[in-house]
């Protein structure tokens, strides 16, 4: 009995999800079409009104979906096949195929259940949130929002301060894309890196060798710098903190600076320069101690 109710609720939830999707796509469709002839003289205002209305629709649909989803019971265990197991004993020829289909879809839902529970635990543990959805009170939110949109002078100040604190790390700022800074870092004769900023938040890192030409997108031709780029992305996410963006940038730069001995320091765990399978020097630096490790040795 309980299961029939479940199905109905599920059905209505799916329907509201579909309406939400179609209303969202309607918004984008209208947006991409832009002003039309039937908007007339003061087309801009009318267009905005129309958009407002569509967005309101989206809001309403979203709320509906929220409500229906909230009323859904959370499945605690994998679904029980119930009486459907008797399908296997079906004798009619044209219905025998149903059982395999049933088993397949059972497997499928079982997998979804498993994956979603994994995803749920991972997402709830992980602090790598790049959005402000769950980040506390509205007062703080207002303050944090501004870190995406900091005055260029302030960004320059922060970066120049970091530049001054290292004698062997040269940092130059350029602004090829409007107001957002793209920072080039020359670390001694070891490596070059380019970091794209959005306000005071780091968005992208690319690390290359000393003799290579630097740009944002092409990877280094050396394995070791590709590995370092990979690790720099991990570090960028690790140090990410929307509330204290300056600290994040400074910590990242300190971490990057520890690569000054990329080739000369051996791994703290195995004591070798080169790892025996990858033939790479220790391209990982611990986030706190800044000690060098091979990727394979860091655990």
């Amino acid at each position: 009995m309980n299961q029939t109710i479940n199905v109905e609720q599920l059905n209505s939830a799916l329907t509201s999800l579909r309406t939400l999707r179609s209303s969202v796509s309607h918004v984008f469709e209208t947006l991409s079409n832009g002003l039309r002839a039937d908007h007339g003289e003061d087309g801009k205002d009318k267009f905005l009104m129309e958009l407002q209305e569509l967005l309101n629709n989206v809001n309403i649909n979203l709320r509906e979906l929220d409500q229906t989803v909230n009323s859904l019971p959370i499945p605690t265990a994998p679904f029980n096949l119930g009486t459907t197991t008797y399908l296997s004993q079906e004798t009619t020829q044209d219905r025998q195929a149903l059982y395999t289909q049933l088993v397949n879809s059972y497997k499928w839902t079982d997998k979804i259940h498993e994956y979603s529970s994994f995803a749920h635990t991972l997402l709830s543990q992980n602090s790598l949130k790049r959005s402000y959805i769950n980040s506390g009170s509205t007062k703080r939110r207002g303050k944090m929002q501004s870190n995406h949109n900091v005055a260029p002078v302030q960004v320059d100040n922060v970066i120049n301060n970091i530049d001054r604190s290292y004698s062997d790390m040269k940092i130059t700022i350029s602004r090829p894309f409007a107001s957002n800074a793209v920072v080039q870092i020359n670390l001694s004769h070891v490596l070059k890196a380019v970091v794209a900023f959005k306000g005071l938040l780091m968005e992208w890192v690319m690390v290359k060798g000393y003799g290579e030409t630097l740009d944002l997108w092409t990877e280094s031709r050396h394995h070791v710098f590709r590995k370092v780029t990979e690790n720099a992305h991990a570090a960028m996410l690790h140090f990410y903190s929307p509330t204290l963006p300056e600290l994040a940038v400074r910590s990242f730069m300190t971490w990057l600076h520890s690569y000054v001995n990329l080739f000369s320091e051996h791994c703290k765990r195995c004591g070798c320069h080169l790892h025996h399978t990858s033939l790479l020097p220790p391209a990982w630096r611990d986030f706190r101690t800044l000690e060098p490790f091979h990727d394979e040795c860091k655990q």
Partner: protein
Amino acid sequence: MGVTVLQQYPVPENKTGTHVIELLTKRILALGATQQGQFLVDCESYLSHPQMGTTKTVHILHNSEQPASVFSILESGTKNIHVIADGLFDLLMMKLSHQYTSKKQTKIESKGPRFELGDFCVKLGSVTMNQNFKGILIEIEYRPCVMANAVWSLLREFLQGLLGPAVPVQPPQHLLSKMNEIYTPIDTIYQYLEHFSAYRKVTGMRNS
């Protein structure tokens, strides 16, 4: 251009050069390297005519890694002067043949297979002078790094692993003075010249 080390590899008395090269090839392929063609470094030396005052030697070297360049090194007592020019320099030397005479019998070259292994480039060269086999030179380049003192112990670890504990690995004489400078192709050429001069001095095979 990364830091390069040139290492002489001893050939045991009862073995042939090709045998040793085959052995090393097997070893490096087992490490996971891929062969990327062949390489050749050659050196020809010219003596200035006695009428021009003290006799000076000019070495002309070519390296297949820099195919468009001709490297020339002028020995003048204590200091060596090098010039890196493009291919036409060879023709210029021919024009100068009555000032500088070529010592044809000392034309020496190192050639063999070239391997890539991760960020390393390894070349196994058999050295021949006038078609006579003289020994084996192994060139190891670590391409991501340009400073010799930063990368030397890493290179030694790699060399020791490749050549075995029997071969002593020391930084090349030329590199010692350049440990804190940016490595350039001419530094490789100097290392080749150092070894080629040593090969010319000994008759038969060189084993030290």
